């Protein structure tokens, strides 16, 4: 039921770690969700998709990973800064 609070906190954590240009380059937000975390993953995904579609974000999508236990973690942030692989 508190998936929106969790999603807001995930977005705050991302904003804390990335500069404004990086936020618009963010393409994936990895979140680990434990089976006993008290969070319904599909609701969390919906909340994150909604928040990540609005500024300061631009094109990020949530990537949820289910785990046993009660973990609830922001696992990683993926950025595409347009630079080539070289």
């Amino acid at each position, binding site marked *: 039921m508190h998936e929106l609070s969790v999603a807001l906190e*995930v977005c705050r*954590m991302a904003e804390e770690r990335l500069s404004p240009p990086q936020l618009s380059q963010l393409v994936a937000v990895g979140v680990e969700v434990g089976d006993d975390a008290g969070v319904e993953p599909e609701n969390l995904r919906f909340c994150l998709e909604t928040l990540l579609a609005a500024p300061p974000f631009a094109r990020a999508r949530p990537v949820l990973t289910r785990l046993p236990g009660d973990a609830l973690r*922001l696992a990683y942030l993926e950025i595409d800064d347009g630079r080539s*692989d070289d």
Partner: protein
Amino acid sequence: MAVRTIEVRERVMARNDELAATVRERLRKAGVLALNLVSSPGSGKTTLLERTLDRLGEELDIAVVTGDVQTQNDADRLARRTSRLVQAVVTGGACHLDALQVDSALDSLDLDRTRLLFIENVGNLVCPASWDLGESAKVVVFSVTEGEDKPVKYPKVFQQARYAVLNKIDLLPHLQFNLDEAVGNARQVSPELRFFFTSALTGEGMDQWYAFLREQVRAVGPIPAM
């Protein structure tokens, strides 16, 4: 094209837990015992607090913070039972209180004149279990009209709580509620849970609750000198 991965691996609750630690330290320094009352809506938390304020409000210098999704009805009811400020937190849709809200609420309370703080959480047996508010202990309140299986349906809140109040026992003669089964279910998920059996409406069982509160406040000790 290069996609860079920034490893974070940080708990989503980390910031709330840091704030909860701040709240806990504020309360410890002020010598305040804080009990976070969690329950489903309608279990009788506010009635339990009304009666507790009537009996112990002055004796134990009780302050109250209430949380509700909308309205400050509970705070208004409780304010009629005490001369102290009852701080209402209207969450505006959120299904739980968080540590930041409690930290802000403490700014409005005279902690130097407080020995016991009740935090009446939003009525909800799921979400409040996940949020540490900096309390000394959680008290789960449930009532005999809710069914014996509440503890196994909502195990996390019973696991997080140190104490349980089974309320509305005056209704037992009119219901098919099996008290032993309810307690057994609770102990199945939380073996150390200490129970109180009350009717906040009639006062039955409340003396044990009052004795417990006096004993707990005494254990925290006198208010430290300024």
